[in-house]
């Protein structure tokens, strides 16, 4: 999709937000993951700590169990020793000390067992109660034994013997406690290790995610930087390229041309500048609309790029394109390039179901011969293009010095045109119109420009110039007022025909001007006939018809001039009640030689009869032509055969002495 406006290059607020979000998301996620890692660390720490505590307490319990067994053993052994000593008949004190020592140990055993039972890790699976029961049973026997140690060693020994089993029972239970606790500690340690391992895995995963997110953060920042860089690049691109077609724009073309110019000045090589425009693009725009016109420009650009084969192509605006060829043999290569372009445009464009054909006109200037600076070279290429279009479009023209001279002359004339009215350099010639029978019924006023330095300039030369620079408005007004004033002075109430320029329909209030001219001159409206060409009707038909109706409402007649050269659309004739049709001189002068021209004349005459319109044949120069037109039942004729355009004084005898008088006065004065 080619960008179509400046906003496409700018970041919209929405995209800024989304970029901000995209940029913000990874850091936020990273922070979340960091917090997660911290939490995991703390959980892990607590798990390990709890594991350690459990393990430690279990260890403590095991220690107490061992302590219990030790003390129990110590006490039991001491009792045996006491019995043994007693039986050996040792001192009473020594025996009683031994018995006391035994019970001290057994007390410690009891305390160890109490402590063991108080440690919270000791659960049901640890046989503390059984141990305690066995220990208490043992203790009973031990006390019985102790009771007899000093009195009856045998009974004591028997009690000790009985205590023996309880001792073993207590010892076995204590061992079971130790085993259970050891197993538990192993389990706790294993759980702690597993917890640690899984926590480390989680932390590892979280850290990995963190690293990935860090990368994402970096990437997103990089992306923002890239996006901004690309936005900058796009803006730069925009500054140098045409938004519609994506082609380099005028700025880029100028830069390119300057660099080419400078490099060729050093190398002495030639380079060519081709100015190109699409034929009748304005009409295509008018007929199909600007959207289609824009699409056409894009398609045309594509064909141009393809045909250019690497040559520089730029769009200067509208349908103006320019190519620069800085390599190769200029003349031959430029002609080859032009040929490729003509070929590329030979096929119709198909846009939205419309089949549109447009040719191209090309003007070429070759540097450095055709200009001493880039601007002149482009101007000359443009002059060549103007010439190509003037020569019938669809062609290529190389700039020639003569052409340059003409162009400069044209510009000079345009400058001078502004002075023409105030300098009283304009004058009117009148050409008679006659019935087919030869009776003069009116005159057509034709403007002439007597240039102070160049002499008489034909209207075909200066009217287009005046239309181009807008001078036609003032000139047209002058012609109308002057012609009306002239005709009003005629004693013979002949008709007056005045040409209107299409430009006059676009600017100013034409009906009001006509009305004013009639009032000022006192010319009867029914004597005035205004001639319009089909060019008037291209564009806003409704507005033009509205203006024509208002003029017609004044009683003025409207003639369709130069019929047959343009679109010759029957719909125009149908849409507006023209009073007359004037067949272009080209058909008339060809009528005898060219059967086609004769056929056209016949067709127009037939058409006009159908519409009840009188037809004037222009450019009648021979008797044969007049005879042909008479045979075809043409109504009126105009041409050299009837009379050339001349100052009205030349026709004084026809229009009456009013004009003649004035002419005489003019001659006298």
């Amino acid at each position, binding site marked *: 999709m080619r960008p179509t406006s400046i906003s496409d290059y700018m970041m919209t607020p929405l995209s800024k937000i989304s970029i901000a979000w995209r940029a913000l998301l990874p850091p936020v996620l990273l922070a979340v993951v960091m917090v997660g890692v911290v939490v995991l660390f703390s959980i892990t720490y607590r798990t390990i700590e709890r594991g350690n505590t459990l393990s430690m307490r279990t260890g403590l319990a095991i220690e107490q169990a061992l302590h219990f067994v030790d003390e129990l053993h110590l006490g*039991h052994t001491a009792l*045996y020793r006491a*019995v*043994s000593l007693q*039986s050996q008949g040792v001192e009473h004190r020594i025996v009683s000390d031994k018995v006391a020592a035994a019970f001290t140990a057994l007390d410690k055993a009891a305390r160890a067992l109490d402590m063991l039972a108080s440690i919270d890790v000791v659960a049901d699976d640890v046989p503390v109660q059984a141990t305690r029961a066995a220990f208490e049973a043992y203790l*009973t*026997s031990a006390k*019985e034994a102790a*009771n*007899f140690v000093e*009195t*009856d060693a*045998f*009974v004591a*020994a*028997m*009690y*000790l*013997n*009985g205590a*023996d*089993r309880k*001792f*073993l029972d207590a010892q076995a239970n204590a061992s079971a406690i130790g085993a259970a606790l050891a197993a538990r500690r192993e389990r706790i340690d294993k759980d702690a290790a597993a917890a640690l391992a899984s926590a480390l895995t989680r932390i590892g995963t979280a850290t990995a995610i963190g690293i990935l997110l860090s990368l994402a953060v970096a990437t997103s920042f990089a992306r923002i930087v890239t996006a901004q860089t690309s936005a900058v690049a796009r803006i730069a691109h925009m500054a140098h390229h045409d938004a519609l077609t994506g082609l380099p724009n005028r700025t880029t073309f100028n830069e390119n041309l300057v660099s080419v110019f400078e490099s060729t000045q050093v190398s002495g090589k030639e380079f060519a500048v081709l100015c190109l425009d699409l034929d009748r693009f304005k009409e295509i725009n008018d007929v199909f609309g600007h959207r289609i016109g824009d699409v056409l420009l894009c398609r045309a650009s594509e064909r141009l790029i393809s045909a250019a084969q690497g040559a520089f192509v730029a769009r200067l605006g509208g349908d103006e394109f320019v190519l620069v060829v800085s390599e190769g043999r200029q003349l031959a290569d430029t002609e080859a390039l032009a040929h490729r372009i003509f070929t590329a445009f030979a096929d119709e464009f198909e846009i939205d179901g419309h089949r549109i054909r447009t040719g191209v006109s090309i003007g070429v200037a070759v540097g450095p011969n055709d200009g001493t600076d880039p601007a002149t070279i482009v101007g000359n290429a443009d002059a060549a293009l103007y010439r190509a279009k003037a020569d019938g479009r669809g062609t290529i023209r190389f700039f020639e010095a003569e052409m340059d001279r003409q162009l400069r002359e044209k510009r000079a004339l345009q400058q001078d045109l502004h002075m023409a009215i105030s300098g009283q350099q304009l004058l009117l010639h009148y050409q008679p119109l006659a019935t087919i029978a030869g009776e003069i019924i009116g005159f057509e006023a034709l403007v002439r420009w007597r240039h102070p330095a160049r002499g008489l300039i034909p209207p075909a030369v200066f009217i287009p110039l005046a239309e181009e620079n807008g001078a036609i408005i003032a000139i047209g007004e002058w012609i109308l007022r002057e012609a009306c004033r002239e005709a009003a002075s005629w004693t013979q109430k002949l008709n007056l025909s005045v040409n209107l320029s299409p430009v006059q329909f676009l600017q100013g209030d034409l009906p009001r001007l006509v009305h004013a001219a009639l009032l000022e001159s006192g010319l009867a409206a029914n004597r005035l006939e205004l001639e319009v060409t089909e060019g008037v009707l291209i564009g806003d038909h409704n507005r033009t018809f509205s203006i024509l109706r208002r003029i017609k409402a004044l009683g003025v007649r409207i003639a369709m001039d130069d019929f047959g050269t343009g679109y010759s659309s029957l719909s125009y004739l149908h849409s507006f009640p023209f009073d007359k049709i004037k067949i272009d001189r080209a058909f008339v002068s060809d009528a005898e030689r060219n059967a086609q021209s004769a056929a056209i004349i016949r067709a127009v005459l037939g058409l006009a009869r159908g519409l009840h319109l009188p037809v004037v044949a222009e450019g009648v120069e021979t008797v044969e032509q007049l005879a042909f037109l008479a045979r075809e039942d043409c109504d009126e004729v105009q041409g050299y055969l009837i009379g050339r355009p001349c100052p009205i004084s030349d026709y004084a005898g026809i229009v009456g002495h009013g004009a003649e008088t004035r002419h005489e006065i003019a001659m006298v004065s």
Partner: protein
Amino acid sequence: MARILTAILLMWLTFVPAQHALAATPEQAKAMAERAAVYLKKYGPEKTFAAIEDSLGQFRDHDLYVFVHDTTGLVVAHGGYATLKGKNTIGLTDIDGKPFVKEIVSIKDTGWVNYKWQNPVSKGLEEKLVYVIRVGPYLVCSGAYKSG
């Protein structure tokens, strides 16, 4: 531990010279017990117990003596081991762990109880066959050592 005890006892007994000449038989023990029971029934506990504990009395004959438990295991009179008097020996076991006192107090009428005990004459640890007669709340016992 049991082995240690056994070793001590064996050592201890080894040094005591055996005196088997006048060892009583189970029948004699039974007769002694019966006499004591009759005596008890006739003269009551107090007089009977004193007679039993009289080392020169009618209920003593070499290694033959009489001892009396109540039903809880308390030694109320002992002709051989005076230190046991007043002690409850219900938890006492012999060298093999046999709870012979419990067996004695569990006898309802008369019966024999067999265990190992020290011969007061020979000082040897011998197998002993005790005849038990229940007299009211008392269990009158007399046993013969089975030495040699």
